[in-house]
């Protein structure tokens, strides 16, 4: 009674486990995983394209909210995507673990008992012969690497255990990849920093513009080092007419202080700098014009390089200058920089070449409240003009200010003046480390080798039997598709024949 109750209780878990670990289920989960990955390529993902998500929200806020509820902006960390791959890996373990046990036993066991009816095997040959053929067969099969079992009047042999070994190792290395991705991601970090020529960056949390740590990251992982951007160079294609102005190389020349060692080095795209505990990558670049702003009292209220964000391939760039200490009122400037300026018929400027050949800066100047004291974090690259009044600019009371390098101009109403002191370049650097990376690579390489083994190595059984009456039977069987099986058996029989005649 009790045992029947228990077995009933046990029925469902066992049923589900069988279902989950069946090959059919693994197949369905794989197809589900493929389908579930699709939306991540259709909708912008927070991890890969945060601006795309913001853009989506701005354009279609209601739809975006719904999509967000469904985690469609975070597909690859979503509950449903995770559920599928976790089930898939559970199913994998449930399938592979018992098979490992069986395989271990097979590796130690003798080849199977020779079947009664060899003529039913996919490949079968028979001819007249005596026991000398069996002796010869032992030699030939052994030489060909078969595992042999002599059973009275027959030989049973098997080869290609590496096929199943490869299959199992492949699946285990996928688990390895998953674990390495998980743990490695936990301890990983990447920090972004914009560095203007001449600036120095010290590797600690405070000096990053943005920083994304893994869940298990601790600040101690940041090794102390510092980096100075000495010069940033862009090499343009000048040799080919059709490509003139196309950048062919970006070179950030840096001086690095790694504590023990000081070096100078170049960071280029595809060629990061190996710093202690992290690699430093070059991810972007642009112009940083040096500007001085004098306020109405003649005091310097801003001085230094401003990072301008590139807007097009000819490096038309946009920058924002904020002078909160200017008197009598705060000053804000939205400035455009054109490395090679050309005036359009509309009166607006555009850049026609990315290198500074005739650089020009235009400024729209605002006065009023910059909104910096309200406690709301402000984007350094944007100016909130709601509480400001335009005093110079397109469609303003006075035309926009235009400056070439070295020029200065007065602001209207005695509010001060601005000066374009010089031109520098900046580099966007990314300091990143993922300790799991090397393990992911090792497991991936292992999976590739074992996959190849599992798919290419044939597993074959060959039998030779002496039938009373002077007949010899040869038979072969292969697991899965094996186009060469007939030919292989033919060869083996040939070798056995020539061996037995000697």
């Amino acid at each position, binding site marked *: 009674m009790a045992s029947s109750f228990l077995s009933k209780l046990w029925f469902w878990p066992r049923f589900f486990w069988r279902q989950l670990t069946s*090959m*059919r289920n*693994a*197949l369905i989960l*794989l*197809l589900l*995983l*493929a389908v579930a*990955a*699709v939306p*991540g*390529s*259709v909708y*912008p*993902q927070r*991890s*890969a*394209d945060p601006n*795309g998500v913001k853009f989506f929200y701005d354009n279609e806020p209601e739809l975006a909210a719904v999509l967000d509820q469904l985690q469609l902006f975070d*597909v*690859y960390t979503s509950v449903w995507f995770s559920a599928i791959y976790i089930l898939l890996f559970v199913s994998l373990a449930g399938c592979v673990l018992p098979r490992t046990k069986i395989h271990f036993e097979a590796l130690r066991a003798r080849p199977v008992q020779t079947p009664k009816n060899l003529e039913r095997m996919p490949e079968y040959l028979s001819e007249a012969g005596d026991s000398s053929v069996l002796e010869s067969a032992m030699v030939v099969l052994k030489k060909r690497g078969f595992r042999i079992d002599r059973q009275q009047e027959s030989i049973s042999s098997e080869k290609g255990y590496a096929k199943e070994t490869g299959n199992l190792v492949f699946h285990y290395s996928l688990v390895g990849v998953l674990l390495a*991705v998980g743990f490695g991601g936990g301890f990983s970090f*990447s920090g972004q920093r914009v560095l203007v020529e001449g600036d120095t960056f010290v590797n600690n949390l405070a000096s990053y513009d943005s920083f994304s740590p893994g869940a298990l990251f601790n600040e101690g992982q940041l090794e102390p080092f510092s980096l100075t951007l000495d010069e940033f160079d862009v*090499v343009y*294609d*000048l*040799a*080919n007419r*059709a*490509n003139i102005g*196309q*950048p*062919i*190389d*970006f070179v950030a020349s840096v001086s690095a202080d790694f504590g023990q060692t000081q070096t100078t080095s170049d960071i*280029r*795209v*595809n*060629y*990061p700098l190996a710093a202690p505990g992290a*690699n430093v*990558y070059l*991810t972007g670049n642009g112009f940083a014009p040096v500007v001085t702003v004098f306020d109405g009292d003649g005091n310097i209220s801003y001085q230094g390089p401003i990072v301008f964000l590139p807007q097009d391939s000819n490096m038309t760039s946009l920058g924002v200058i904020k002078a909160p200490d200017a008197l009598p009122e705060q000053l804000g400037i939205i400035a455009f920089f054109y490395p090679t300026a050309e005036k359009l018929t509309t009166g607006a400027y555009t850049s026609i070449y990315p290198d500074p050949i005739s650089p020009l800066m235009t400024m729209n100047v605002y006065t009023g409240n910059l909104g910096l004291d309200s406690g709301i974090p402000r984007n350094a690259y944007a100016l909130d003009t709601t509480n400001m009044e335009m005093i110079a600019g397109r469609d303003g009371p006075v035309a926009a200010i235009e400056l070439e390098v070295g020029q200065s101009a007065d602001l209207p109403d005695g509010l001060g003046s601005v000066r374009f002191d010089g031109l520098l370049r900046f580099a966007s650097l*990314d300091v*990143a480390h*993922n300790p799991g*990376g090397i393990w*992911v*690579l090792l497991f*991936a*390489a292992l*999976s*590739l080798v074992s*996959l*190849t083994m599992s*798919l*290419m190595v044939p597993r074959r059984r060959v039998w030779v039997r002496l039938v009373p009456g002077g007949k010899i039977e040869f038979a072969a069987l292969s697991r*899965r*598709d094996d*186009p060469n099986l007939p030919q292989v058996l033919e060869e083996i029989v040939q070798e056995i024949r020539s061996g037995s005649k000697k």
Partner: protein
Amino acid sequence: MTEVVLNEPLSQVSLLFVSSALAFLALALVLFSFQLVKLSTVEAVSSEAKAASSGSIMVDEKIATDKMTATERAGFILLWVSTAILGVGVVLRGVAAGRVPWANMYEFSISGAFLILLVYLTALKIKDLRFIATFITGFALITVFAAVSLFYVEVQTIMPALQSYWLVIHVVVAIMATGFLAVAAGMHIAYLLKASDRARKLFSHFPELLQLERIAYRFNVVGFVLWSFTLIAGAVWAERAWHRYWGWDTKEVWTFIIWVLYAGYLHAMATRGWNGKRAAWLGLVAFLSVIFNFTIVNLFFKGLHVYSGL
């Protein structure tokens, strides 16, 4: 990077070769289609005749499939010629650009078509795969035509992100994988045509279903291994160029999806009740994803793999 002087006149010569390969491919396709139709009608008639006069054996039945007809021979000569001409075009393009000829969609397409033809013609030496000549030629023709008409760009120096030896390794293996998977897709189509109730008669001269399935499997297996390598090599390159080995960039997503689909196909082949038609459909869907990844994802999806040059 050392400055590369592009050779534009030479790239025009290359384009000439590629375009003429197009003409030869078109001719070969006409001949193969003609042959296919002829065989189908012969077979259809012969099987009807067989049904009508049960017992009397059609003498010519085997000859039609085993021996090459003049049409077929001419088709294969044309196919060899077009492959050779296309090969010259691809090599000249590389010489003109001073680098490997697969840095944008146009170049990837012509290199890919060339490799698919080469894989097929080599496979022919080992195994009688004449029956998918129409499919392979048609596929190569469409690829080269799309390259010349839709994807064409002048020779360009490549952007810094592509200046890496990984461009050679990652992309060449991707092209090879596509070549093997394309031949397998041809087998899947042949299988599904032959297995369909309506078209069965027309394609009775194709090999047996079991054999079609096996050939498809073999090509898919090689393609899958190469695809896995492409994925791993891409991750290694991404770690150098984009400071992370995997970031779910749209192209990475689709490479992953394709890998999973082919993994599903391999499981299907080992699952009772899932091989046969279902596996063939799955393999075909997987290959359509490869095409989708190369065309739609390249051109219309936002991502980091922006190298179409368009």
